């Protein structure tokens, strides 16, 4: 019953007029910056942080948290409508979401994303309320060796992202990994592939790659052919998912939520894996595997749920240990400190109203997001009717502004041009941008943790199998590889069968 008392305290705090108001302001702002490609939650929170100094601590944190998960929510909108993902998670949503939009089912895709996000947000909030401290303790057992094995597992599982030629997919992953190595090596300080340009020392920004490979390349492809272009703009059918589609998204939402909630707890990059892994799992369990990549609603609902659940549970390390899992949370640590509160295990006991109020506000924020976004779907879809002469330059302008605002580095904008052209070229060659992005995101994580694990253990490679969590993850990786190879064998048998028929 203690939990109910705590939740009652939380809701009595979160439902105060000013808290609901600022929660709304937060999720509204978050949705807005999520929708605008490039302009991320980190820049927004950094700009608004000084304003919140004059607020009550709980109000300030409610608003800042709202911006973060609101942005995760809004990010799917541009990914679906105009193939412009602003975060790695949204890149996965773009795969099938944008295909659906091209087929005139943008409304259904947006609704699936909204419903999935709401369910995931609710479940993850409950997880946060029930088990935050023990979950955080588990997360701390993840050292470099465990992260290496986890990322390896994620990479193997996510090869399912590719459709078509496996060889081309592998080549794209390798190219992505190589692009991920650009910049200063954190262990030795050696600059890699920077061509003497100090602006490249920080590496290539993910947003530049995603916006270029997906958004700009898509625009270039649309421009080459009058017929397909018209098709994208004009054919918009029913706004809501059909009964059949509603039935199809139940499983993906639940699986995505579970997967996302679990991975989100890991501060060392678990949330990055959530949507990739969910997509891979859905493709694996689906009876309509061939539809993935050409507009499967499961491929939108699953990853979006996973992403939102992870966004919510990634607050666990922050709230219970004061450890930030995301740059936005690092800013929130600052907000805690400025208000004289030490983020860490003492928050629950010393500031129960703040802790539980923040958790309750997340659920309220999710309700507000649904109320805000469902009616907007009609409006967003209408955006597709904007003539391309206006829409395309606007997309590119906003993408350039957003990317430049990340670090005021002109190279991030040049990178959009480069990756736009590269993306177009790759599409022409029949190569998919998604595996490249996967390699780009996971490659550096893999390298960083492999080398760190080896440094800490003085070059002893057995550490990956002697640490139990790591060993289990590696065993799962091997299992995943076997499962991945099996269909090839089965297919050969199927071919035999069809010939017999």
């Amino acid at each position, binding site marked *: 019953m203690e939990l109910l008392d705590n939740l009652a305290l939380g809701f009595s705090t979160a439902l105060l007029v000013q808290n609901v108001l600022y929660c709304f302001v937060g999720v509204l702002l978050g949705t807005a910056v999520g929708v605008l490609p490039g302009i991320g939650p980190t820049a927004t929170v950094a*700009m608004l942080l000084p304003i919140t100094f004059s607020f009550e601590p709980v109000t300030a944190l409610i608003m800042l948290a709202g911006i973060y998960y609101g942005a995760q929510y809004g990010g799917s909108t541009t990914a679906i409508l105009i193939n412009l993902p602003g975060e790695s998670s949204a890149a996965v949503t773009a795969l099938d979401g944008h295909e659906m939009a091209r087929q005139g089912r943008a409304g259904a895709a947006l609704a699936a994303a909204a419903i999935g996000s709401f369910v995931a947000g609710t479940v993850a909030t409950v997880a946060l309320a029930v088990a935050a401290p023990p979950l955080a303790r588990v997360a701390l057992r993840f*050292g470099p060796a465990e992260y290496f094995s986890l990322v390896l597992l994620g990479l193997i599982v996510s090869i399912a992202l590719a459709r078509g030629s496996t060889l081309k997919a592998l080549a794209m992953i390798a190219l992505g990994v190589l692009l991920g190595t650009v910049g200063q090596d*954190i262990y030795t300080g050696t600059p890699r592939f920077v061509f003497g340009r100090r602006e490249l*020392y920080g590496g290539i920004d993910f947003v530049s790659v995603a916006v270029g490979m997906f958004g700009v390349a898509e625009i270039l492809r649309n421009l080459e052919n009058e017929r397909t272009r018209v098709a994208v703009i004009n054919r918009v059918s029913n706004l809501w998912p059909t009964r059949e589609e509603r039935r199809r998204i139940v499983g993906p939402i639940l699986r995505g939520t579970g997967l996302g909630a679990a991975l989100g707890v890991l501060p060392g990059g678990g949330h990055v894996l959530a949507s990739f892994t969910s997509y891979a799992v859905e493709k694996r369990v689906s009876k309509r595997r061939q539809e993935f990549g050409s507009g499967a609603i499961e491929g939108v609902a699953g990853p979006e749920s996973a992403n939102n659940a992870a966004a919510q549970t990634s607050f666990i390390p922050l709230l219970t240990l004061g450890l930030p899992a995301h740059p936005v949370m690092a800013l929130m*640590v600052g907000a805690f400190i400025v208000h004289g509160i030490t983020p860490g295990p003492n928050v629950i006991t010393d500031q129960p109203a703040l802790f539980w109020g923040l958790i309750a506000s997340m659920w309220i924020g999710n309700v507000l997001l649904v109320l805000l976004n469902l009616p907007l779907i009609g409006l967003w879809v209408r955006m597709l009717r904007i003539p391309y002469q206006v829409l395309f330059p606007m997309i590119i302008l906003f993408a350039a502004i957003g990317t430049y605002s990340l670090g*005021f580095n002109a190279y991030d904008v040049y990178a959009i041009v480069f990756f736009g052209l590269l993306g177009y070229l790759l599409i022409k060659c029949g190569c998919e941008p998604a595996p490249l992005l996967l390699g780009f995101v996971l490659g550096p994580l893999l390298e960083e943790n492999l080398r760190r694990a080896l440094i800490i253990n003085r070059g002893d490679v057995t550490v990956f199998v002697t640490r139990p969590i790591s060993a289990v993850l590696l065993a799962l990786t091997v299992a995943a590889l076997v499962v991945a190879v099996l269909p090839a064998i089965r297919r050969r048998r199927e071919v035999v069968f069809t010939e017999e028929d």
Partner: protein
Amino acid sequence: MTTTSRYRAAARMIAAIGAVSLAAACSGNGGTTGTTGATGGGGYPDRNITIVVPFSAGGPTDTVTRLIAEPMAAKLGTKVVVQNVEGAGGTVGAGEVSRAEPDGYTVLMHHIGMSTAPALYQDLGYKPLESFQTVGLVTEVPMTVVARKDFAPATLKDLVAHVKANAGKVTLANAGIGAASHLCGLLFQTAAGVKLQEVPYEGTGPALTDLVGGQVDFMCDQTTNTSGQITAGEVKAYAVTTPERVKSMPDLPTTTEAGLPQLQVSVWHGLYVPAGTPQDVVQKLSEALKTALADQKVVDQMAKLGTAPVPAEDATPQAHRTKLEEQLGTWAKVIADAGVKAS
């Protein structure tokens, strides 16, 4: 947040337009005009001043800058916008300001990294003492030596003895090449006369996470990053690296008290303008800085971050230059001895 990038080449036009329209969209007051022509002198300032922070938004340096930007703006009677130009340990932003018009409208906030960059980077493209005019020091953030909570040594002296006896086993975390924690770690090894296995991370957050999780043994980082974990008992703290104890953690001894007086280091921050800026403009900026540092709100907020403004006599161009000269000498030696290179 941003302003026009007057000093950027025309080739960067698109990006500049983007920045202006973003400023217009987000702040509602439009971007500043792109007039060049250094006005200097009596009319200064007659338009917005930009403080470039060469690190990411939300980091300790950015927080400090945003704290003083408002009272400085009030004193100067203009708007002060903070712009984050990140990259390569702060050398991208510093390089950009060194090439800016020396008119006092482009100001750089930099920390201890200004004095270590010449030793760490080849072909820096600017020289700290020649390319910049110092305006004044801002704050000196103390650093703390912290360890995982089940690490055996109980005091700083024990720690030194322990790492000497177990040099092959102990791991020392840091937040990356050239980071304050890396510099402090180097100084610790020099002071203790031992060479340890360093484990670099990408930023303080992940390093601290692994320290709390017990994956690495110890590290040295700014109070702004560690005080939360120390007061919560999630890490073990040995000492603070400044001559005096920190108000927010009165029980934590100084390195001198704890028996390692050679370990003296703080993350000092200062304001710079490009060399050649008129003296009266530098003076006005320095006065505004002093006013900001005396502001009670700034004092209170800095105290919460575990630091304090420098005394008024240090917020001057001369005191700042003296500090920079001294630090350039110190770090050139420490970094050369350690054989570290960032490029």
